[in-house]
């Protein structure tokens, strides 16, 4: 009897190969070969076997499904897990939503981390309620500004001349977003070489005049559409040149939304101070002169 379609052995081997298809290829081929060898050995003991003889022989070997089940059962756990088609289908089913969820989470985190509803709403320079205002402050509207023989034109904002004491830069900020934010800290992008931060930031609500400012000791929660004044005291380092002016730059506010913090630049009107240029022509304030006790 040979391996034709009517041959029960050929049919059996086809069924066995199909039943073993979930096994890794090398193992499947090895098992097929070994069962084939077994059948060949068994057949060799039969003289001119009939179909019934072959059927009995195959019955003794067992059904292809039983052999495949045994093979899968005895696979190492790692391979068996890999072969579990149901688990694989479940993974394929869950993978797209999981990817979408992770991507959405990343996008939301990026949006939250860059959430910038804080905006300038007025002010700059000026004074702090209850504190004497800066002496010599000059408002600039583009008209020529003459300082110690040097004329500056086209400047807007305000000019704070050199002084020994501190002076406040006051900026109004408002939360334009729909969510509350928290202000963690404030600093100036400047001051450059001429001025320095000279004290704690103060804040007070933008509302009734004369409201007393409080030092910024704790994070400030700013509700939607609410505004506050932020006052940052600055002072001249001591040495400057009146031949040049520099802008102290925008106010930088550290904002926290949820767990994310970042710095927001709030640009009000420029605040000009005398620039440092170094000798010759440098002037130093009396109480800051080098060598003075």
């Amino acid at each position: 009897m040979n391996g034709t379609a009517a041959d029960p052995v050929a049919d059996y081997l086809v069924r066995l190969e199909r039943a073993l298809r979930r096994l890794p290829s090398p193992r499947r081929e090895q098992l097929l070969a070994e069962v084939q060898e077994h059948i060949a050995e068994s057949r060799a003991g039969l003289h001119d076997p009939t179909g019934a003889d072959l059927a009995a022989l195959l019955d003794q070997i067992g059904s292809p499904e039983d052999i495949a089940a045994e093979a899968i059962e005895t696979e190492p756990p790692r391979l068996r897990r890999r072969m579990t088609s149901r688990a694989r289908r479940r993974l394929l089913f869950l993978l797209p939503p999981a990817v979408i969820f992770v991507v959405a989470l990343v996008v939301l985190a990026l949006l939250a981390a860059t959430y910038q509803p804080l905006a300038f709403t007025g002010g700059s320079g000026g004074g702090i309620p209850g504190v004497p205002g800066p002496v010599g402050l000059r408002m600039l509207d583009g008209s020529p500004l003459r300082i110690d023989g040097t004329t500056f034109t086209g400047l807007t904002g305000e000019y704070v001349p050199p002084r020994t004491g501190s002076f406040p830069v006051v900026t109004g900020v408002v939360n334009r977003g729909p969510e509350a934010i928290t202000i963690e800290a404030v600093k100036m992008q400047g001051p450059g070489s001429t001025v320095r931060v000279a004290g704690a930031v103060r804040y007070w609500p933008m509302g009734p005049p004369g409201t007393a400012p409080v030092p910024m000791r704790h994070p400030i929660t700013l509700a939607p559409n609410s505004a506050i004044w932020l006052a940052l005291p600055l002072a001249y380092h001591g040495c400057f040149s009146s031949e040049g002016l520099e802008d102290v730059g925008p106010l930088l506010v550290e904002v926290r939304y949820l767990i994310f913090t970042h710095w927001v630049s709030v640009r009000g009107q420029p605040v000009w101070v005398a620039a440092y240029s170094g000798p010759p022509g440098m002037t130093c304030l009396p109480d800051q002169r080098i060598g003075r006790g």
Partner: protein
Amino acid sequence: MHYMVPGAAGKLLSQMRRGAIEYCVLALLQTDDRYGFDLVRELARTDGLVTPEGTIYPLLSRLRSEGLVETSWQESQQGPPRRYYRITAEGRAALASFVEQWARFRDTVDHILATGGAA
């Protein structure tokens, strides 16, 4: 009162067989190398150990992948070359460990079954 039904007995035998048969294979290979058909027939002669015969080959495959047995081809006077199985050193160590544990297990079970747990 609970009676064990034939189906349950068959399942129990299957589970016991599953736990012990690989060591029976290793034991058969202790003294001589054997080819698959020979191994299967030897095991089949013992009631209940291999049913059906074809299911021994997945086990042999696993024993080989675990390094407990190794194979080689040898010429046969009766026909084509045969794949012979040989126990490895790791296989002998695994068998020795099983023999020790099996003896203890068997004695314990025999004792409890015979005496009902009485010392």
